């Protein structure tokens, strides 16, 4: 068994992993039940909020995952990404197991790549479980079909008709985009993890980065600098469902994430390769 295999065993037997996966199943189920028990009324505004998606999900079960994705990507999924990213190296260090691994010897570069890969896979898997559970629950309650044009925002705004196949395709792209938009959180958590022996601290730092980004992003006086914040384009995928096309903002959002991922990972790897392992 390789280092990848040992990492799979470590993560697979960890209670934390299964608690996260359990949450990813429970939350869509709870939301579905709530929407079924108390159907939402048509929201006002210009469209694109969580209320719109909850309202639209009554039209097709294929839209429930979009609604769940929207609410989860603003808090829950960021926490999950930060948790897995912050855990990478710091968890081994906090157990005191890092020195044993390095003396075995496991190459430092290889170790960080495997740990980072595992955190990325776990984050993506969590998002996928969330979306699939929502899809199954939504289809069971509201069926598998497309939507006819729906008016939102007191008739000022209209969501175009979309077939079931098109909705599913949009969902796949949205899931991929949301997963990628979490990459900076994983990378920042990983970077802090190489510098710390406290996995919770590293996870909190990554989560804090997104909180600060979201707060500053809401201050329009900051101007165009906000375009470089990791959360600025987080919701750009909504255009897929609301306007029936992918916006250029998704490309910009992906590039911003890429910049952060490259920078944070490079710093993390550089730091870890020269780090004195004291723990």
């Amino acid at each position, binding site marked *: 068994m390789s280092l990848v295999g040992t990492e799979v065993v470590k993560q697979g037997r960890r209670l934390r992993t299964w608690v996260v996966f359990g949450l990813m199943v429970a939350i869509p189920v709870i939301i579905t039940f709530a929407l079924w028990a108390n159907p939402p009324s048509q929201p006002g505004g210009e469209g694109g909020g969580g209320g719109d998606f909850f309202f639209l999900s009554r039209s097709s079960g294929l839209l429930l995952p979009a609604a769940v994705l929207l609410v989860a990507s603003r808090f829950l999924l960021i926490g999950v990404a930060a948790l897995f990213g912050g855990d990478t190296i710091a968890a081994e260090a906090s157990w005191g197991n890092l020195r*044993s691994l390095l003396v075995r010897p496991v190459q430092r570069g290889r170790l960080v790549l495997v740990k980072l890969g595992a955190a990325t896979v776990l984050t993506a898997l969590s998002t996928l479980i969330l979306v699939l559970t929502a899809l199954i629950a939504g289809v069971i309650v509201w069926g598998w079909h497309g939507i006819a044009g729906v008016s939102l925002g007191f008739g000022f705004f209209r969501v175009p008709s979309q077939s079931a196949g098109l909705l599913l395709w949009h969902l796949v792209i949205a899931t991929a985009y949301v997963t990628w938009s979490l990459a900076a959180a994983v990378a920042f958590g990983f970077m802090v993890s190489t510098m710390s022996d406290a996995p919770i601290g590293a996870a909190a730092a990554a989560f804090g980065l997104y909180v600060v980004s979201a707060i500053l992003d809401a201050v329009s006086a900051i101007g165009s600098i906000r375009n470089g914040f990791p959360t600025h384009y987080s919701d750009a995928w909504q255009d897929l469902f609301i306007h029936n096309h992918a916006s250029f903002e998704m490309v910009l959002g992906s590039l911003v994430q890429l910049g952060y991922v490259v920078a944070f990972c490079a710093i993390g790897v550089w730091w870890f390769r020269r780090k004195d*392992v004291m723990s």
Partner: protein
Amino acid sequence: MPPDASPTPTAAPPASVPASPVVEVQSLSKRFDQNVLAVDDLTFTVERGDVCGLLGPNGAGKTTTLRMLLGLIRPTGGGTRVFGEAIVPSARVLARVGAMIEQAAFVPYLTGLTNLRLHWEAGGGDFEKADVEGALAVAALGDAIHRKVRTYSQGMRQRLGLARALLGQPELLVLDEPTNGLDPQEMRAVRGLLRRVADGGTTVLLSSHLLSEVEQVCTTAVVMDRGRLVASGTVADLMQAAVSAYLEVDDGERAARVLREVPGVEGVAPEPPGLSVAMDGVERWQLVDALVHAGVKVTTVTSRHRLEDAFLGLLGEETERTS
């Protein structure tokens, strides 16, 4: 061995055979961020088959030295070689080394056996060919090997740590305070194990602050204080360098006064119910002769060659030299 090491260097190999020590530490230094000099120009070697004890008080730099030897810490000066290969982080030659640094640590939610397996397989090894039976015999955990490590006592973890270090029958064993957390019976068992491992041809480098442990187990020793080398050599030579005698007499105060006048007596200290006498170039019979001539009745006299005496003496000399 460094040229100024005292009292005598480890026996050199025959001149015709190219010497290749298992461990070479050359002018090794480590300065931490807060300008703390943890290791200062340290040089020593460990020859094949040696059981070498790294001795020193707390803060002497033993653990830092071992960490540098294993590539966990980068030296700020000098370097280390193991089996002739320069040590860098995760150096391949470390595959020939078994190590336990400070307290043995494991993934807490996995069983002891799974921890051993994952540790070995993380390095690409085949667990079935890693002398697992031998390692498990060392751990002596019985069915507890299938329990999660978080349920283990400190002693059980330490034994599992030794087992992990012995996986794959390493050619060099590096152990940092290996008997920490063990009860006296377990400590004795570990000492026996180290002797057996050494008899099997494995070179052992262990740090310890337990002088009796080093005295019983080690063939050579390196004494450190405040990051510097104080002395190195065979344990027998180190002990020989610090000869003392223990005497029981009928009048301790008078005996002490008499003994202090004897040439070659370096110090007399009460050690109830008798006296401890540090000697340099004087024989025991001369002490007895002086006491008898002074009318002091001597009931017991024994010679001492203890590592503890040597250690304390060496550290005392070092303190005087540097102050």
